[in-house]
């Protein structure tokens, strides 16, 4: 089977993962932590970086996620655990997909913001979900430069409008603001969990763990710069700016003469996001296939079933986004850290059973 190369994996960590954190997260952090919004972000990144380091070390064992579990707990328990993990991935994917829908509707189709405008996404998703997981490696090769150009373009156009002194004074939001911010941010930080289903699809090369962690933190630094800039531009009204990366660049002085040239970069990032939000769905399907086998039509059937499920969920929650956001960031915020922070280090501790499979 064709493997994901180290380069592709590093591109994913450095260039693709940050994109998912540029839409609603900055406004949510500004809402909960005010001008101290960088602190919850930094803590979330550091915790995830540690988990990613562990997840990449697990790759040294050369086994898939399911094989690791089966070797220690046996097939039945492993199947239960992997099913739980697959459900978790579907759960984690829901907010980003809803986010993507709102973003596409509100930003690209502002004159006709109807659900129909977003519906073709599901055709695209169904196609992607039916492709092998390793094909995402090639996708990351293509998307990484697009992502870099998109983020750089937006940063360059926006920097001059930002007043970074708005981030002072440090500690104004207090501990409460910090904890609320960290709690809210968990909904967007399941990065380490995304690496687990990829175990076995790439070879561990010397130094991959620290290289991957550094790449992830480099992407995080760009996100932190963007979030600081976002707050510097919108200051007290930041919580009202839902689609952060589409809003910051429009104050560039050249826009009044040239038109919204920043939309080129917004489109580029929108495209990267479309691929990024489907990844947890694909990984969820892959977990099930790994555990229960791959009869001829099952991958396609699962791809169609997951697409249909999410189409239905998006329709059902079309006008309940605030409720969904509150549910993810305030009620069940603890679920994501269990899977994305606790599991990777625990996997390092797993020992092969004497009579394992």
């Amino acid at each position: 089977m064709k493997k994901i190369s180290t380069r592709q994996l590093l591109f994913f960590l450095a260039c693709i993962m940050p994109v998912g954190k540029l839409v609603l997260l900055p406004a949510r952090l500004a809402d909960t932590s005010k001008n101290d919004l960088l602190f919850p972000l930094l803590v979330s990144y550091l915790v995830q970086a540690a988990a990613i380091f562990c997840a990449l070390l697990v790759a040294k064992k050369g086994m898939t996620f399911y094989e690791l579990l089966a070797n220690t707990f046996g097939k039945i328990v492993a199947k239960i655990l992997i099913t739980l993990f697959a459900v978790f991935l579907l759960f984690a994917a829901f907010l980003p997909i809803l986010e993507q829908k709102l973003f596409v509707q509100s930003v690209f189709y502002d004159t006709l913001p109807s659900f129909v405008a977003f519906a073709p996404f599901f055709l695209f998703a169904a196609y992607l979900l039916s492709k092998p997981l390793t094909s995402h490696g090639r996708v990351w090769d293509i998307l990484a430069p697009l992502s870099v150009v998109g983020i750089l373009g937006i940063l360059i156009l926006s920097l001059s409008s930002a007043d970074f002194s708005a981030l002072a004074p440090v500690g104004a939001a207090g501990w409460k603001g910090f904890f609320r911010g960290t709690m809210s941010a968990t909904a967007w930080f399941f990065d380490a969990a995304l690496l687990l289903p990829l175990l076995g699809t790439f070879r561990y090369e010397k130094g991959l763990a620290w290289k991957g962690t550094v790449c992830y933190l480099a992407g995080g630094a760009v996100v932190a710069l963007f979030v600081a800039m976002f707050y510097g531009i919108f200051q007290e009204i930041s919580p009202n700016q839902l689609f952060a990366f589409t809003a910051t660049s429009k104050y560039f002085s050249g826009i009044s003469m040239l038109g919204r040239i920043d939309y080129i970069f917004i489109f580029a990032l929108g495209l990267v996001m479309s691929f990024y939000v489907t990844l947890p769905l694909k990984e969820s399907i892959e977990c099930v296939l790994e555990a229960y086998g791959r009869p001829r039509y099952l991958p396609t059937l699962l791809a169609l079933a997951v697409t249909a499920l999410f189409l239905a969920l998006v329709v059902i929650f079309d006008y309940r986004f605030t409720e969904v956001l509150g549910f993810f960031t305030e009620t069940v915020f603890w679920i994501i850290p269990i899977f994305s922070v606790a599991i990777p280090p625990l996997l390092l501790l797993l020992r092969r059973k004497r009579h394992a499979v």
Partner: protein
Amino acid sequence: MRFKKFLQTVPMKLWIILIVVVLFSFFSNDFGLVDIQKTAIILAAGIDKTENGFSLTAQIAVPKGSDRTTGGTSSVEIGAEGETVSDCVSLIFSETGWVPKLVFCDLIVLGEDAAREVDVISHLNYFLRNDYMPDSCLLAVCEGKAEELISSTSAIDDASSLAIEKLFSEAAVKSGKVLTNTLKDFAIDYYGVSKCSFLPYVRMKEQEGGQNDSQTAAGGGGGTSSGGGEEKQQIYIAEETALFREGKMVGLLPREQTLALSLLEGNVFTGTFNTEGDGSPVTLTVMKNEGGISLDSAHAPKAELSLSVTVRLCCRGVTAPVEDIASDSVSEDILQSAKATLTEYVQKLWDLCKESKCDVFQLKRMLYRSSLKKYAEWKDVLLEAVTPVIHTQVISMK
């Protein structure tokens, strides 16, 4: 070597297809399609206070010719009354069948009553909440009713809003004659610790000899009256600046203090101001301007207002010899006089702000950002307690 290998693995055809798709999507502008026959493209909105709430006057661009069309933008004004601004917008829709569209609304004008008597965020919050409203939209207050201003016939443009927007151009701002503010920046000031801001104050002036027999279309909700027959053409002036505290208009800066605030912000380039030289009036042009406001909170708070201008002689109020006309440089006598004039403008600006308790300099914000402890100590009495130190420097162009 590695880079070459990477390039070989990336399918170039896919790259090209992706770039073409992204560029095509952008340049096609298909995402911006609007059914113009069913949509009311609002160019500007005027808000007034009424007994029961608000009245909204929307100036709407129309796709067909009208009496007022002279080959440029034709427009009609539709008015509606309601308890909230949203009510008014809904009424415009229900009574005309046009879907009001705010994406192109670049100007919101507040009537003086609406600005003085109620917290303006009570009506502006509709626009802040609206995802399709650009927050770079300009805000202004007008003398009398916004409805009258929006519905007036401009002497210089087809639509009054377009004529008013000309007053707020970048060139006008650089002249120091007008201070503009956007919905975004006004909201940031309002929700910030100072809770103070400013907006340009627009007056209408009848154009002598100018007359137009255009007809103002009227619609819904008992708003705009239909004006048949002859209507006087108007010109607009926005040299004054309205001061806001906690969302209410609390004072008005005359043109000199508008200039002083612009100079303190370091905005002015090629703006002019008058002073005296050899007992006659002299106009100087500002060729370079640096300004700044800082707060020293080490001991008792002290505000430092500093401005530096490089000027050249623009005009004398008396006949001058040709050698004088050929020279740009300004005599020491005039420089001293200009320094005194600008210092007086800034001092008066400070007094007016203090009188109206409007922290237009954002001193509270500066204190808050520099020290939470000092902020807690001084926040309630800062403007009264602070001592202003004015530094003015006027340099002649060589």
